[in-house]
């Protein structure tokens, strides 16, 4: 009976499949010549077509990362990463999972993707400007419906005027997320990520990236280090968005700074005198949303860490010449990967994550500082570097030594100020910190499972002492970094830099 149904389904699919269709047409609306991708049937029990991943990458100009040991392939479209694994049906799309009907296959040295991957994963990830037509086996790319029509520039007395041409006037926001990255948000707009991406699209702009995130079109301008600032304005009734990049002093040449070979990467390069030190401190309130953390003495960790972060922020901004940003400012769930992504994209230079501790023994007491040290990521980073593939969870690798220094300085400075026992600085393989591309530590401020200690953690005096300790430690690390001519963090994603090489 079951076999009968299978046969009937197969016959139906055969009848409805386009006759003689063995290629997928890729049509580009921006004028590029069309491409044809060969299709194959790999599954005996199915009539679904498969297409070679390499053909898709070449035709569409996607970034691709392949790790043969695990059979994982990551395709990057704009800022969205699509991860497939050979012989599995699961596709990881950013923070979401999509289950295909058929698995990804590996044949004769090539990864093959079921056609439904293009239809249900790739085209939707690219945004509404892409359209997949299964009946005609055709993928239409870009052009149609895109609201960002193009980009050009003009050089004016050394400064650069970057002009984004829009289909109409859009509500927008132009923001510097770090000194080398300007983010343009266009609300209720559509962008074709691939049509606009490019290296050096204008003087003072190293690279342009674009991303469709829901109803927002996002454009990222990666700037040269000698950009001193920018102004944004509109012309033509809002249909041209102008970003004037001001050229600053040329950076003083510095001797080449060599990272250990295990962690060397292009984006981690010496910066000029103007770029030394650090400018943004990220403060993370641990846990949140469904993840409550420790519960003890009538308190909940996620609430206490948020309260502490809000108390510490103004005190740290008053004590340090830095901007302090919170990774979480409300009670919401954030996965470790998303938290690390937020940290990396925020352009922060140092990250301090606040947590409360817990133990089975009620007498456990004190504060401690945790870090992902060189011992934890060293071997893995080396393996990854050898394969030109740096997995997300090893992003901390190049910063592990700095994180260790920060942890040690921090436990010393906190030890001078806090009344609780000092449990020291410890190396721990924490999932969240492994994905963070900057010096980063977790501060366990005390034990909620210790009734006597829980009261202390709530007091404003304790927050003041914590702020003073963190400020002193961050200042010491920034001073040391400036003296050594090294920048703290970077904003590029590790994979894209690894892929360039």
């Amino acid at each position: 009976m079951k076999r009968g149904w299978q046969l009937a389904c197969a016959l139906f699919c055969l009848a409805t499949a386009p006759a003689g269709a063995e290629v997928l047409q890729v049509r580009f609306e921006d004028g590029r010549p069309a491409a044809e991708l060969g299709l194959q049937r790999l599954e005996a029990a199915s009539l679904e077509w498969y297409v070679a991943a390499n053909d898709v990458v070449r035709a569409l100009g996607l970034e691709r990362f392949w790790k043969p040991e695990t059979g994982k392939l990551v395709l990057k479209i704009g800022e969205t990463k699509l991860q497939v694994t050979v012989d599995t049906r699961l596709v990881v799309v950013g923070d979401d999972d999509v289950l295909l009907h058929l698995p990804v296959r590996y044949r004769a040295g090539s990864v093959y993707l079921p056609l439904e991957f293009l239809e249900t994963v790739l085209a939707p990830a690219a945004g509404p400007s892409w359209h997949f037509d299964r009946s005609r086996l055709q993928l239409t790319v870009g052009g149609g419906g895109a609201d960002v029509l193009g980009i050009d520039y003009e050089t004016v007395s050394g400064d650069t005027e970057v002009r984004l041409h829009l289909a109409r006037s859009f509500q927008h926001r132009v923001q510097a997320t770090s000194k080398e990255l300007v983010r343009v948000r266009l609300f209720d707009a559509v962008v074709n990520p691939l049509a606009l991406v490019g290296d050096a699209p204008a003087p003072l702009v190293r690279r342009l990236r674009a991303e469709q995130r829901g109803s927002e079109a996002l454009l990222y301008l990666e700037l040269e280090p000698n950009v001193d600032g920018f102004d944004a304005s509109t012309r033509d009734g809002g249909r041209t968005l102008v970003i004037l990049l001001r050229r600053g002093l040329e950076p003083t040449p510095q001797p080449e700074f060599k990272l250990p070979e295990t962690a060397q990467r292009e984006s981690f390069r010496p910066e000029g005198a103007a770029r030394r030190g650090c400018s943004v401190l990220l403060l993370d309130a641990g846990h949140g949303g469904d993840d409550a953390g420790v519960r003890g003495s009538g308190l909940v960790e996620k609430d206490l860490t948020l309260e502490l972060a809000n108390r510490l922020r103004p005190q740290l901004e008053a004590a340090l010449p830095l901007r302090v940003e919170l990774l979480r400012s409300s009670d919401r769930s954030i996965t470790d990967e998303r938290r690390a992504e937020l940290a990396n994209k925020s352009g922060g230079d140092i990250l301090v994550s606040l947590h409360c501790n817990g133990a089975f023994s009620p007498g456990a007491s004190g504060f401690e500082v945790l870090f992902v040290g060189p011992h934890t990521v060293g071997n893995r980073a080396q393996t990854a570097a050898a394969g030109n593939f740096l997995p997300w969870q090893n992003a901390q690798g190049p910063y592990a030594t700095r994180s260790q220094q920060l942890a040690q300085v921090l436990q010393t400075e906190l030890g001078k100020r806090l009344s609780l026992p000092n449990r020291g600085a410890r190396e721990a393989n924490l999932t969240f910190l492994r994905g963070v591309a900057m010096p980063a530590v977790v501060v366990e401020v005390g034990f909620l499972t210790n009734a006597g200690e829980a009261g202390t953690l709530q007091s404003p005096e304790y927050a003041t002492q914590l702020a003073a300790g963190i400020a002193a430690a961050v200042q010491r690390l920034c001073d040391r970094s400036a003296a050594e001519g090294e920048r703290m963090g970077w904003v590029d994603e590790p994979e894209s830099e690894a892929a360039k090489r």
Partner: protein
Amino acid sequence: MQGMQGEEERERGGRSPGQRRLLFWSFVVVLLGAAGVLLFWPHGPLQPEREETSTSSPEPGKAEQALQLYFADDEAQNLVSERRALPERASLEESVEAAIAALVAGPEEEHHNSVFPKEARLLQTYYTESTRTLFLDFNHALVDRHPGGSTAEYLTLGALVRTVAANFPQVTRLQILVDGQAIDTLAGHFDTSKPIEVSDWQ
């Protein structure tokens, strides 16, 4: 003389030789009976007091295996070990289950502390020889009743991995499951979605 002696003895003891013999043999029988009771009484004072060192006492005559279990110290700073004698099991899986049950039951020595919620139970155990991976499938109490905090989480995982490593050296990887499913994390700090390399936690 004999008659006089007999008279004197009758006057002293007042018992005939037959009565004395009966008394003597009665005494011997009572003595032997008492000795027997003392020798063969299960918890008699002649038995040396056995050390109660395990949660499930080995049955007499059955082979035992010595296991090393890990718990936390009072300050939750370090793992501390205890030795237990448990009945020898037929398979690796059964031995692991006995060790984990003892681990969950908690420490017996002073200043040693639990590292598992008391309600946690091991539902099933699998071992795959090809990858030398041990799968431990717990009930949901492992997560729901865990106090949380990076220290408690570290000590739970550390004690589990070190107990397995100390007693079952053939295991090189350990996958924690809850109700048959892999979990991302026990309490939000350490990754348990993939098998834990035992060597990373040594």
